[in-house]
């Protein structure tokens, strides 16, 4: 099973920045992002989330978000998606980093979740 990571943020810079941070330690993990709105607006777009799901080469996805409204859009996108997507109510930057580092060394999803659940804050 190949896992991928999806980062959803209200601000495109945050999403892209987290991707840069985790690419460093997880070169072989597919990471895609959905940040902000059209015209560089602040918000979350379900279409961008759907694109991030599609472009991710992982078979199953781990999704992280910043604020509650991003979660609602994520949940809608998950309901509409064919891929299995796991959604975590954990610290965005820190849990995405942890998950990426662990997936890079082929940790099982169960063990990854054990780690990131300690970062649950939402």
């Amino acid at each position, binding site marked *: 099973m190949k896992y991928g990571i999806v980062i959803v943020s209200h601000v495109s810079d945050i999403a892209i920045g987290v991707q840069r941070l985790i690419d460093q330690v997880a070169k072989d993990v597919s990471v895609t992002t959905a940040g902000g709105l059209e015209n560089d607006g*602040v*918000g979350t777009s*379900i279409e961008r989330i759907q694109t991030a799901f599609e472009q991710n080469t992982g078979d199953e996805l781990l999704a992280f978000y910043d604020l509650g*409204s991003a979660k*609602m859009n994520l949940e809608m996108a998950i309901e509409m998606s064919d891929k299995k997507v796991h959604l975590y109510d954990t610290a965005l930057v820190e849990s995405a980093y942890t998950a990426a580092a662990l997936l890079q060394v082929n940790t099982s999803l169960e063990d990854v979740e054990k780690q990131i659940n300690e970062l649950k804050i939402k």
Partner: protein
Amino acid sequence: MTLDVEKTIKWMDDFNAEIQAQKGYLSELDTPIGDGDHGNNMARGMEAVHEALDGKEFNSVSDVLKTIAMSLISKVGGAAGPLYGTAFLEMSKTNSGDIKDLIPAGLAGIERRGNATEGEKTMVDVWKPAAEAVSAGKLTSKLIDESVEKTRDMQATKGRASYVGERSIGHIDPGSMSSGYLLKTLLKVGE
């Protein structure tokens, strides 16, 4: 009261007009307890709804409701997008035009999507009393206005306003205000 295709479109025209007129006020309400964009979000979403409906043919009320849902989901950009979007999707699934079916279905969608219940200072606090009243045949503009006003003294425990905790008390919830406009324009198309 039962909607047909024409009335549903009229409802959206009226709601759109109200949103565009109150855009500044809604964003103002969202400023002390949120990020100040609710009016802009709704205005953007309702413009998309208008474009999606304008001059099109629809076979059923359900079709219109689904089209509205899709536009709101993709264009609002804030929490109100998935919330109103899910409300309209659930309304569409009832295959009914009767507001006794529609309002409770919309409420159920919002509650599920927002994981919210009454008393959390969200739009649920307008939809819930409206759903109860419509079932009893007692939904009025006055009741809607009162529910909106009641959100003023609540402390938010969901959404962005929950971050400021006690400081959310004393301000009307913007999503409740826009929900008030939505339900009042709905009542009006039945008059």
